[in-house]
C-alpha cells in the first residue's frame, strides 16, 4: 500500500479510538498530520508506541511552533514519528494554549525525547510535566525570554536590559585591552 494511505488509515484508527481528542486530520504532499488536544497526549503516544501493528519505535523529532495571532491556540508541539519495522510515518501535533503552556512529557516512552523537550522549553517556554530534567539547554541558564517565540525580537533592542553575561564579556574585553600588542610594545 502507498505510504500516504497507510498513514491515513492510522490517523483514522486513531480518531476512532480517541474521537474526543483528535481534532483534525490533514494531508499535504503525501504526509499525514493529526491535530490532537494536549490533555491525553501521553496516552495517545503510548498507544502509538506500544501497539504492535503501529510500533512507532523511532521518535524522529519534537519541536514547538508559535502561531502567534494565527491560530486560536498559540503553540503547537509537533511529534514526528516513524516506525522502523513497518516503515510508516505520522506527524502528531498537540495544541497548547498561551495561558497554560504545559503538556505531559513523553521522555518516559522514548529516551530520545528528553533533549528535544528540553530544547522546546528553552526556545518556546512550553513546560513538560513529568520531565526528568527540564532545564535550558542551548541558551545560558540565566537567559530571560524564549527566543523562538514570534514576539521575541530578531535583533536585540533591550539596551540596558541586555543579558548580564554579554555585558560581562564586553567589560572583560575592555579590561583585557591592556594586554594587546600595541600597548604592550609601548610599555616596553
Amino acid at each position, binding site marked *: 500500500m502507498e505510504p500516504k494511505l497507510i498513514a491515513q488509515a492510522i490517523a483514522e484508527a486513531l480518531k476512532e479510538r480517541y474521537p474526543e481528542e483528535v481534532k483534525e486530520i490533514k494531508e499535504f504532499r503525501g*504526509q499525514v498530520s493529526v491535530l490532537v488536544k494536549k490533555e491525553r497526549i501521553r496516552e495517545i503516544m503510548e498507544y502509538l508506541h506500544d501497539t504492535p501493528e503501529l510500533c512507532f*519505535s523511532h521518535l*524522529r523529532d519534537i519541536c514547538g*511552533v*508559535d502561531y502567534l495571532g494565527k491560530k486560536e491556540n498559540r503553540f503547537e508541539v509537533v511529534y*514526528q514519528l516513524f516506525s*522502523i519495522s513497518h516503515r510508516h510515518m505520522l506527524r502528531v501535533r498537540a495544541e497548547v494554549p498561551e495561558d497554560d503552556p504545559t503538556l505531559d512529557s513523553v521522555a518516559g516512552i522514548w529516551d530520545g525525547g528528553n533533549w528535544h523537550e528540553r530544547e522546546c522549553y528553552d526556545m518556546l517556554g512550553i513546560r513538560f510535566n513529568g520531565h526528568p530534567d527540564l532545564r535550558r539547554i*542551548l541558551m545560558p541558564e540565566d537567559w530571560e525570554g524564549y527566543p523562538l517565540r514570534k514576539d521575541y525580537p*530578531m535583533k536585540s533592542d533591550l539596551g540596558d536590559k541586555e543579558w548580564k553575561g554579554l555585558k560581562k564579556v564586553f567589560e572583560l574585553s575592555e579590561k583585557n585591552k591592556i594586554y594587546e600588542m600595541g600597548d604592550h610594545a609601548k610599555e616596553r
Partner: protein
Amino acid sequence: MPKSAEGLETKELTISMGPQHPATHGVLRLVLALDGETVVKCTPYVGYLHRGVEKLAEHMTYLNAIPLTDRLDYMSSMANNEGYCLAVERLFGIEAPERAKYIRTMVAEMSRISSHILWLGTHALDIGAMTVFLYSFREREWILDLFEMLCGARLTTTYVRIGGVRNDVSQEFLDSLYKFTDEFPGRIAEYETLIDQNRIWLKRTKRIGVIEADEAVNWGLTGPTLRGSGVPYDVRKYAPYDAYDKVEFDVPVGKNGDVYDRYRCRMEELRQSTRIIRQCIEKLPLGPIMAPEASKVSLPPKDNVLKDMESMIHHFVLITKGPIAAPEGEIYSAVEAPKGELGFYIVSDGTGRPYRMRVRSPSFVHASVIPRLCEGSLIADVIANIGTIDIVLGECDR
C-alpha cells in the same frame, strides 16, 4: 565516606571536561563525577555554538537560508545543502532533473567520505593511534580539492540549489573523481592495516560503549551509530531520494553495538560510498541541471541572465520583489547525512519565507546519549565514547 585500607578517606571527585578540550571535537562540556577512575555521573552541557539558525531562517527567503545549512555540520556541507533543498523542493512540489540528482548523490557521497575519514583520523588520534590521522587527511585533502574545483569552496560549499545544482560538473572533475574511486579502496585497506589488528586498538574499542538495538532505537540514534547495533535503518534505503534508488549499494550493519562495530560500519560505508560515486559517474545522464519550474525560487544561472530575457526577468523579480509565495502547508523531509538522519521540518504560511524551520540534527540526539554510554565506564573510555557517536557541535547547537 568509604575508607581505604590505610584508613585514608576517599571521596567523589567532580571534574569539568571541556568546553575547551582537544578530544571533545568542538565545544562540548561534560561534568563528570568520578569515583577513582570510574564515571559515576556524567552531565553534558551544549549550546556554546548556538547561533540561532532556526530563528535566522524565519527572517530569510528560502533561497537565502541555504548558506546557513553549510554551517550546521561543517564537515559535510553538501549533505546539509541537499537535505534543506530537498525539503524546500518537496514543499514547492519541484523535482530536480535527472542529471542534477546524480550530481547531488555524487557530492553527498563525497562529503560522506570526507566526514568519515575526518572522523576516523580524529577518533583514532583520541584513542592513541596517531598515524591514521596523517593518512586520512591526505585523502580528505583530495576530496576538498575536488570540491574547490567544483564550486570554489572547500568547506562551506553552498553548491546544491532548490531545484538542481549551482553549476555543471566539468570533465576534469569527473576524471579526477574517477581516479579517486580507483585508488580509494586501496587506501581504506591501508588504514585498516594500521589499526584493525592492533591489539591496543581492539582492547580500547571492543565491548566499550555497548548499546543494544532496542535501546539505540529508543534513544533516537540514527546513521552508523545506530547501524553498529544491528538495525539496518538508512534513509537512503527506507525513503530513497535523489538517485539513491538508481544505484546499487549495501547498508553495512554491526552486531554488538560497541565502539568497534560502529568503527567497522563506517569503514564499510566508505567502500559503499566509493561504489555509489563510481556508478554515478558511469551512469551520469546528459541534460539540464536546474528544474525549469525552480526559476520561481532559485536564481537562474548567471550565464543565462546575461543572455536570455526570461532568466533576466526572473532574476530581477526575485531580487526586487522577493520570492514567489510557497504553498501553505508543512513538510518533514529527511536525508541520510554522514552522521545520521538530518531532518528539516518546514512550516509554510503561504509567503516567501519559512514560517518555522526546524532542524532535526543527528548530533543533538547523539550528544544526549553520552551519559548513557559513559556512566559506569572508565574515564579513559569517555573519549572513545564521544568519538564513536560522531558528533559535531555546530550541528548540535545550531
